[in-house]
């Protein structure tokens, strides 16, 4: 009983610790963990790419606020959708992102030389921006910014800004263009047709 209470307290304080962590510390912890996993000798080589992509997908699963991302990318269009359509869209869009980015990261992780964190900024209490500069082995700098939302279990990413280009803004402009040309159903059809590289 005493042990149970102790472990319950411990879990609580751990959870509280996770909550109290700064957005930048959370990004750094997740990034360090996934890079260490990717560099594991057991998952090297072209034939182990599927394993590496699985690792990236798992990390993204934990760290992204999919619904916020999807909502931001749809803009006002989100309001016109039924709850079932919203659920479907979040599902399709998150799969699409996980597929695209796990492929990229599992391919290019070796080019990364170092990451310099450039501080965080918190707006309205539960929005955070964490800036960093990724330097490649060819000594080229790429400014990257994570935009996050505070959730019950920590900070979750809803947007990634690379070289000034926001992922949300870019997809929103694409979705607007597609919806303007065809319709929301046309957009759904396009996302479904895009199943580039399944595991």
């Amino acid at each position, binding site marked *: 009983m005493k042990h149970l209470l102790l472990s319950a307290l411990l879990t609580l304080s751990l959870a509280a610790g996770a909550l109290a962590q700064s957005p930048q510390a959370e990004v750094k912890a997740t990034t360090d963990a996934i890079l260490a996993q990717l560099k594991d000798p057991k998952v090297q080589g072209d034939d182990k790419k599927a394993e590496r992509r699985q690792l990236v997908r798992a990390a993204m699963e934990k760290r992204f606020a999919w619904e*916020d991302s999807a*909502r*931001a990318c749809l*803009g*006002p*269009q*989100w*309001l016109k959708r039924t709850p079932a359509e919203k659920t479907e869209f979040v599902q399709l869009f998150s799969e699409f992102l996980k597929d*695209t*980015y796990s*492929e*990229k990261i599992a*391919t*290019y992780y070796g080019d990364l030389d170092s990451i310099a964190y450039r501080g965080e900024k918190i*707006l*309205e209490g539960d*929005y955070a*921006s964490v800036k960093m500069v990724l330097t490649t082995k*060819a*000594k080229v*700098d790429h400014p990257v910014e994570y*935009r996050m939302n505070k959730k019950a279990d920590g900070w979750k990413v*809803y*947007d990634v800004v690379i*070289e*000034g*280009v*926001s992922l*949300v*803004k*870019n*997809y*929103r*402009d*694409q*979705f*607007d*263009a*597609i*919806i*303007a040309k065809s319709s929301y159903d046309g*957009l759904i059809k*396009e*996302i479904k047709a*895009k199943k*580039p*590289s399944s595991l």
Partner: protein
Amino acid sequence: MKANTPLLLCVLGLSCAALAQGAEASKALPEGEFHDPFAATDASKPAAEGEFHDPFAATDAASSPAASTERISDPLERLNRGTYYFNDHLYRWVLRPAAKGYGAVAPKPMRESVDRFFVNIKYPVRGVNNLLQGRFSAAGIETARFVVNTTVGVGGLFDPATRWKLKAQPADFDQTLARYRVPTGIYLNWPVLGPSSLRGTVGLAGDSALSPTFYLDSSWRWVTTGATGFNMVNTTSLHFEEYDALKNGTLDPYAALRSAYFENRKAAAAKKE
């Protein structure tokens, strides 16, 4: 060389006139603008209830020195999409195979040196534009980089300056114009050159006037053209996975490139040193 100057002035003059006209037109003819049926992209307007609220989007808009509410204007979309289609095929059928073949015979370190060489000789573009933007220390760093990399770096083939904490300070004429609050103007997708805008085109003309190759005698034209083509193949050989990845990750690659072009230029204009 002298023959180029009137031509350049002509291009600059025309583009400036077109730019002024474009700015005028976008005010007078909102229907000519990029049609967005689901407006409310105006960052200053609070998002409707239930819509995702992003306080950083408003910050982005405010930090841009050029008109903060400026939106993508693409009245020539049909023509631009045609050029996109052409460029995409040029890339897939000509540039990519050439770059792959070249990449197979030329080792990567050599190709990276070639890339650095072409970047190094364009020092006047970065130096002058940093000066025009009042970024004097950046201009100084670029000058030091040019001296170091041209001498110790064997004519720009290597980049010892970066190791000596002299980091590259990119600057271009489009960025300079943006800092003087020249509006972007309409989107233009050029054959071969790719995404640009009215302001971006003037920027390109200005930058090419600052490139040393521009001042070679006309009998050297074939060398310049050859060097430009070679540089393109070389750059592609170092980056072709990026284009493929971009196309894989997009649903409307034309809209994605257009959006990325505008956002990237906005970020360049807002960059603080």
